[in-house]
């Protein structure tokens, strides 16, 4: 689970929760339903700005024995900051 910035400039990200599961027997009980639990931090909160956005997501990477891997990413929202608005046009 991580947050990342998205926008016009340099990118940033922070990994909040990481788990590598190499053994099927170590899968959490709810894994079959796609559910897992981890406490979220106080910040950063999701933000839908004009120049920069902060996104939280769950990213799952599957490594197959043949050497291939697949990535799936699902964005979710933390907090309730209103989206940024464009500055009013000058008359």
């Amino acid at each position, binding site marked *: 689970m991580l947050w*990342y910035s*998205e*926008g*016009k*400039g*340099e*990118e940033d990200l922070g990994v909040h929760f990481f788990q590598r599961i190499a053994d099927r027997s170590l899968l959490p009980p709810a894994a079959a339903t796609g559910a897992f639990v981890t406490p979220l931090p106080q910040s950063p909160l*999701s933000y*839908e700005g*004009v120049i920069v*956005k902060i*996104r939280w997501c769950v*990213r*799952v990477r*599957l490594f197959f024995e043949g050497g291939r*891997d*697949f*990535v*799936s*990413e*699902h*964005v979710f*929202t933390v907090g*309730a900051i*209103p*989206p*940024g*608005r*464009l500055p009013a046009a000058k008359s």
Partner: protein
Amino acid sequence: MHATVTNPFSTRCTRPGRIAPRDDAGHLVDVGAMLDRLEELGGSAAIVGPHGSGKSTLLLHLAAAIERRGGRTTWIRVRSGTDVRPLWRAIRRAVPRETLCIDSWECLPRPCRGILRLAAGVRGCRLLVTAHHPIGLPVLTARNPSRRLLRSIVDSLLVPAPCHAALIQPADIDAAFARHGGNLRESLYELYDRFEIAVRSVPGQVGTDSADHDDPAAGRRTIHELAARFSYAGAPDRNLG
């Protein structure tokens, strides 16, 4: 609740390496053929072109292709004329036939470049560099961006979310290209802004009244509609979802 929409012109989608390299006419570059030409040139060469013409993107793809062929590469980005130490260190550590991929080689003073080339030659390693002008190394390719190139890049960025295409018109692309004198990077930055303006002008989209907090049900509906329509343009390439 409000919708999240990935701007297809954000750095996440446009940074060097994300966009497949294209020639000046907008056709995909045959990286394998270019590597063959690099071998013909002796393994050391320069990718030449103006600011924002896709040199770094091409260099990244060539580096990846060299690795796929079993070669070894080291990536170095020169940020200023005094940025010699990482280069020197890389040359000292390089193994014979290793390719040092150096972005913005021309930032280094000429005498410095001469010494580094000499040292690389002694170590038996190769230099694949980007520069704004020919700088003594054989020219692998000279970039000269065109409107067609920018249009093809924009088309490729809009592929994951075709509904975004209506927000960016061909005239916008041409205008951005003209305004920035053919600088693709700056043109994409302008299109980023244009997209933000356009997406906020669509009712129910991010930052518009109907997608804000007044009607939570409308917000949820918008999210699901967007999720179905947009996917995530900036998500990793091999997305299972």
